[in-house]
C-alpha cells in the first residue's frame, strides 16, 4: 500500500517537474499586446473606427480605451478573433462605426480624371499612381478599399467596386453533403 502511494507520489512529482520544465523551455516570447491586436486588424487604414489608422486603434484597444467592435472591414470574424485574443465576449459590430461590406477596390474612371492628385494625398497606402495633370489609376492589388479617396475627388470619378472572384482567387467550397433520406439511401 505504502509502496503504491509512494510510486504515485513519485510519478506526480516527475510529471510536475516535466511540465514545469516544458513550460519554461517552450514558452513563447509573446509579441506585445498591441502588435498582436494589430496583426488581427485588417490594415485597411480607413479610420472608420474613429482612430487615424489600424495601429492607433490597436493601441486604444490595448489600453482599454476602445471596444473591440469598431472595425467594419474586419467584420464579425475580426471581432471574434479579437475576443479570443483578449478573452472577451463576442459582440455585434457597433453600428455607429459602419457596416461590414464585401471587400472592394477603388476604381477611377480614367476618362473623367483631371489629374488633381487629391486622391493620391488621401490614400493611406500609396495605392494610386499618377502625377499632376496626368490620368491617375489605382493599383488594385494594393488598394485596401478604405474609401478615403472617394470624398476628395472634385469630379467624382472614383467609385468603389466590390472585388469579384477570379479563377486565381476562387476557393473550393466546404463539401456539403446532405444525407439522402433513409428510404433512398439503402438503394
Amino acid at each position, binding site marked *: 500500500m505504502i509502496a503504491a502511494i509512494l510510486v504515485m507520489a513519485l510519478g506526480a512529482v516527475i510529471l510536475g517537474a516535466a511540465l514545469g520544465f516544458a513550460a519554461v523551455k517552450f514558452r513563447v516570447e509573446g509579441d506585445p499586446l498591441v502588435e498582436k491586436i494589430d496583426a488581427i486588424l485588417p490594415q485597411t487604414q480607413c479610420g472608420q473606427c474613429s482612430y487615424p489608422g489600424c495601429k492607433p486603434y490597436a493601441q486604444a484597444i490595448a489600453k482599454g480605451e476602445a471596444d473591440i467592435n469598431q472595425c467594419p472591414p474586419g467584420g464579425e470574424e475580426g471581432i471574434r478573433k479579437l475576443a479570443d485574443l483578449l478573452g472577451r465576449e463576442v459582440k455585434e459590430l457597433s453600428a455607429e462605426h459602419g457596416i461590414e461590406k464585401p471587400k472592394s477596390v477603388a476604381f477611377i474612371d480614367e476618362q473623367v480624371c483631371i489629374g488633381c492628385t487629391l486622391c493620391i494625398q488621401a490614400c493611406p497606402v*500609396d495605392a494610386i499612381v499618377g502625377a499632376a495633370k496626368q490620368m491617375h489609376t489605382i493599383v488594385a492589388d494594393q488598394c485596401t478599399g478604405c474609401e478615403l479617396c472617394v470624398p476628395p475627388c472634385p469630379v467624382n470619378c472614383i467609385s468603389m467596386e466590390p472585388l469579384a472572384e*477570379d479563377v486565381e482567387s476562387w476557393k*473550393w*467550397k466546404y463539401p456539403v453533403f446532405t444525407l439522402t433520406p433513409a428510404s433512398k439511401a439503402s438503394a
Partner: protein
Amino acid sequence: MEVSGIHAHPGQQGICMKTLRRLFDFHGGIKPDYRKESSTGDPITVVSASTSLVIPLHQSIGGPPRPIVCAGDRVLKGQRIGDADGNVSSAVHASTSGTVTAVEMRLMPHTSGLSALCVIIEPDGRDEWMPLQPFDFRAATPTQTRDYLRDAGVVGLGGAVFPSHLKLSPGKQGKLDTLVINGAECEPFITCDDVLMRERAEGIIKGTALMREMLAAATALIGIEDNKPEAIAAMNQALQQSGIAHIEVVVVPTRYPAGGAKQLIRVLTGIEVPHGKRSTDYGVQCFNVGTAYAIHEAIDLGKPLISRIVTVAGNVGQARNFEVPFGMSMQNLADRCNPRPDTDRLIMGGPMMGVLMPAADVPVVKATNCVLVGSPKLFPPPPPEMPCIRCGECAKVCPADLQPFELYWFSRAKIFGKAQEYNLFDCIECGCCAYVCPSHIPLVDYYRFAKSEIWAREKEKTSADEARERYEFRLLREEREKQEKAAKLAAKTAAGREKAAAAIADAEKPAETPEQAAKKALISAALERARAEKASVVPENTGNLTSAQQAEISAIEARRAEIREMAKPHLPPDD
C-alpha cells in the same frame, strides 16, 4: 522499401545500362479499372480548327500573359498572341491562322465556372504557319534558351502546366544525376502519352536528349508502366535507331499513381523529393513525355506549343486520341467520338484527378490531356457519406504516406493549423484515399477546401502586412517631407529673416496660402476643361496607327477590361 544509402549515387547506375535496373517501391497506391484499351485502337487524328478558337491567355502556372493582339488583327499559326508576364509565366500562340475577332472574358475550363481573358480567333482555313526558325541552343546561353522556351510557350503537359523553362536549370551543383521522363501515365482512360510514344517516339527521344544536355544530367530514364508494351517497344526501337547514349527506357510496375512525378522519381531512383523542395537539389528532374516532344518541336523545328494530344474517352461510341489545336471547344472534340445520349458532363483529365467542366463548350488548353465524357452510369454519384470509422484503408493507399483520416478530421473541423501539422500540403490530391474509403467520404474535397482556405488566409495576411508596411512607410515619408520643408525654410532664413518669419507665420496659419489658392484655381480650370471635354465628342486619334501602337492600346484596353471584370460584383456561388 528502405532507401538508406543504397542509392547514394544514382548516377553511377547509368553507366551499366544493360543490367537490370533496381527499382524502388512507393507506399500505397491502388489498382483501379484502367479501361485504356478502348482509345488506343486508332492512330492519332490531327484535327484542324474549323470553328472559332477561344484561346485563354492564362494556361500555365504563373502570371497571366498579356495579350499583344487586338480585334481585327490577322494572325498566323504559331504567332505569339500573349506575352509572358515576367519570368514565371509562359507565352501563348495562335494555334491556327485567321483573324482575331475579340479579346474578351470567356468561360474557363476550370471547376469554378469563372471566366478569364481569352483571344478569340476565327480561322481562315489556310492553317498558314509563321516562318519557322529552329533554335540553336548550343550557340545560345542557358538564359537565352530558357527565354526562348518561355516565349515558345512550352509548359509541362502532364497536367500541372508548370512552365518548362523554369525547370531547365541544373540546380545548385550545375549538373544532375538523373533526368526522369515520365511516360508512366497511370490514370485510367488516358492514353495520350501512350499513343504519343507509339507514334512519335523519335521526337520524344530527341527532346529527352536536348533536355539531358541542358540539364547536364548523367542519365535520362524514361519510365513507362508495364501495361503499355507497344509504347515500350516503340521507344526502345527509336532509342536504338537514334544511337543516343545515356538514355534508357525503364519499365515500371503498373500502379496508380506511379505517374505522379514524385512517385516516379522514387520508383526509378529511390529518391523522395519532399514537398516544397526543388527536385534538382536532389539531383533529379522530371518531365512528361509530351513535354519532351514539345521541347523537341520548339528547339529542333522552331514550333511553339500550339497543340497537344488529347484522349477522348468515357461514354463515347469510339474513344480515340486527337492532336488538337488549343482553343478548340471540348464539345466539338467530344462530338467527333459519338457521345452516348445519356452524357451529362465533361471532365478534363482522368477519373481520379480530373476536374469537372462547368460547361461543354470550354476550350481545350495546355493542361487538357483528356476529355472524359461522363454519364451517371459510368460515374455514378457517390453513395452517401458516412462517418469515418478510422479503418485506416486510406492510410494504406496514400502514396504520400499521410494519414488521410486525420487530415480529413481537421479539415472538416476547420482546424487548419493542425491539418498543416499533419502535412496537408504534402497531399498530391491523387484521390486514392477517397477511392478506397468504405465510408465514401469525399476526402479530397475536404483537402481542397482546406488548402484553398489556408491559401486565401495567407494571402489576406500578406496583403494586410503589405498595407501596414506601405502605411508606415507613408507616415515616415510624410514625416521626412515635413522635416525637409522645415530645413528649406531654415535655409531661406539665412537669405532673408523677414521673409522667413512671414513664411513660418504662414505655415502655422491654417489660412489659405497663395500656393493653395493657385492650386484651387488650377483645379477649377481643369474641372472646366474636363466638363468641356466630356461634352464634346471623345477625341480619338486612332486613325492610322502602327501595329505596335495598336497592340499597346489593345493591351491597355485588355487590362482595363480585366480590372472592370474583376470589379464586377460576382454572383453568389450556386451549390
